[in-house]
């Protein structure tokens, strides 16, 4: 009772569906005046049972299901899944396919970062920049459509390679688009990094320190903006990345200092757009000729899955960070026994808490958007018991774990 009368803060719920957030996530803020004192994030509003659906299908069908986990990362999920299956079934990917996979991945990174830049501008109320960046992004989408046959759901991945080759007559269009980006990059950089409006709203706002980024396992541009050198393209050395000139993109490359604020996240993403353009050019120069897929006969591939008994993991640096897929086959059917997906946003949820603390209410949209969240990719479980939703806490999970151990020991 005493606490109730002396309490000076009040609570604001934001979400699950809120105009300030583009994703269904629920924040419960403890506010004192305009200042955020405490944040609680609650998830699980958009569980779609993708993994369970996948377990009823064969890996060729899952490729297209994985593509629909996320609209923007519609290349990263199938490619991570394909890598997991290749790992489980010992499928060798031809060298040319390595380079083609890099080109598609980097093209998607350009699209995604441009989209994010537009959304970030929109969140601070600068819609003119939104239209400008999305106009440029349209060129990247046109190139995607030209290379893969569709703008968003690319359907380019195949287990053991890719489905479409880049022929010589496609190169002029690729170079034209890349040159367009190079010509316009300076314009974009000037607008995002020198404009007073954007600087006012993003500098010193939503700070994630180096220690917090390490401790909370942030991934992707969110962690690199805090100065943590973490990038699975460099760390894991997969596809053709070891042959290419690639480095961690941290904000000190441009400004010489790391602040870990929203402004730094803008810098990192812009630098990565530039890096991606460079990587695509390197790939086109170095690409060897040869096969693009290891096993073109799909019935043979399906027979391989049926024979396989074992597990595999697949990682890829998606635009938002590292995406991770786990697959297990039991040797009885071509359908996977288990399929587990960890989307990059899962790791970027906890960093929201230190970022949002001590900020103002008006900064919530831009800080929340600065990690480029993708909630529907992240949600993996929802517990419904007797038609009521419940949340399991740490103690309950521990109890379940103990019960399971006892059950197995019997």
């Amino acid at each position, binding site marked *: 009772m005493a606490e109730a009368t002396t309490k000076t803060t009040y609570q604001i719920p934001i979400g699950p569906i809120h105009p300030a957030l583009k994703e269904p996530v629920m924040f419960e803020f403890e506010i004192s005046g305009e200042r955020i004192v405490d944040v609680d994030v609650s998830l699980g509003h958009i569980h779609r049972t993708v993994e369970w659906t996948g377990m009823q*299908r*064969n890996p*060729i*069908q*899952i*490729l*297209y*299901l994985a593509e629909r986990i996320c609209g923007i990362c519609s290349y990263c999920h199938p490619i991570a899944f394909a890598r997991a299956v290749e790992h489980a079934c010992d499928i060798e990917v031809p060298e040319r396919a390595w380079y083609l996979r890099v080109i598609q991945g980097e093209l998607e990174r350009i699209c995604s970062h441009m989209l994010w830049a537009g959304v970030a501008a929109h969140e601070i109320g*600068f819609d*003119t*920049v939104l239209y*400008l960046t999305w*106009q440029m992004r*349209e060129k990247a989408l*046109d190139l995607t*459509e*030209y290379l893969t*046959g*569709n703008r968003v*759901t690319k*359907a380019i991945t195949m287990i053991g390679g890719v*489905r*479409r080759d880049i022929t010589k007559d496609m190169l002029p269009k690729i170079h034209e688009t890349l040159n367009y980006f190079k010509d316009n990059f300076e*314009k974009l950089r*000037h*607008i995002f990094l*020198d*404009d*007073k*409006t954007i600087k006012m709203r993003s500098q010193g706002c939503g700070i994630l320190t180096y220690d917090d980024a390490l401790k909370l396992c942030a991934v992707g541009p969110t962690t690199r903006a805090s100065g943590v050198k973490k990038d699975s393209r460099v760390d894991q050395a997969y596809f053709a990345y070891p042959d290419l000139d690639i480095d961690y993109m941290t904000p000190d490359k441009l400004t010489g200092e790391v602040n870990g604020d929203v402004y730094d996240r803008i810098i990192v993403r812009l630098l990565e757009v530039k890096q991606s353009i460079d990587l695509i050019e390197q790939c086109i120069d170095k690409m060897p000729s040869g096969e693009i897929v290891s096993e073109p006969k*799909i*019935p043979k591939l*399906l027979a391989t899955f049926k024979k396989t008994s074992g597990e595999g993991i697949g990682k890829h640096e998606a635009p938002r960070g590292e995406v991770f897929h786990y697959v297990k086959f039991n040797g009885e059917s071509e359908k996977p026994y288990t399929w587990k997906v960890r989307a990059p946003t899962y790791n970027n949820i906890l960093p929201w808490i230190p970022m949002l603390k001590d900020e103002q209410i008006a900064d919530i949209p831009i800080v929340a958007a600065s990690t480029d969240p993708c909630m529907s990719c992240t949600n993996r479980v929802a517990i419904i018991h007797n038609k009521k939703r419940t949340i399991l806490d740490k103690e309950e999970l521990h109890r379940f774990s103990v019960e399971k151990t006892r059950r197995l020991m019997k």
Partner: protein
Amino acid sequence: MRFTMLPQVFAQMLKKPFTNKFPVKYVPRNTTKLLEAVGKGEVQIIPPIETPPNFRGKIQYDKEKCTGCQLCIRVCPSGAIEFKPEEKKIKIYLARCTFCSQCNDVCPVNCLSMSNEFLLADTDKYSKDLIVE
């Protein structure tokens, strides 16, 4: 320059709009009347932007070539293909199709292909335009 977007905004005012105004420049009051007018030839429709080569549109099915091997049914991610056992031919429901063209790749006799047609919106998912057989 403190407001770096300003010159860009003024330059944009003199440029043509980026968007293709498909199907007509302004939203019509009545879509049905517009379609009637188009049918009579009174109104011209602004054409959509051309699709790139190898675009994945509506599936075309060569029934004569099909041997009824059912491989396409095995790989279709959305279960859009139905087998007709008495004829040993297939039936494709485009309302379920995801346009991945995996069935085209797997077909041993190349009886399936993707066309450029993409304006497939319909109020009835079992309409004649959305079933290929």
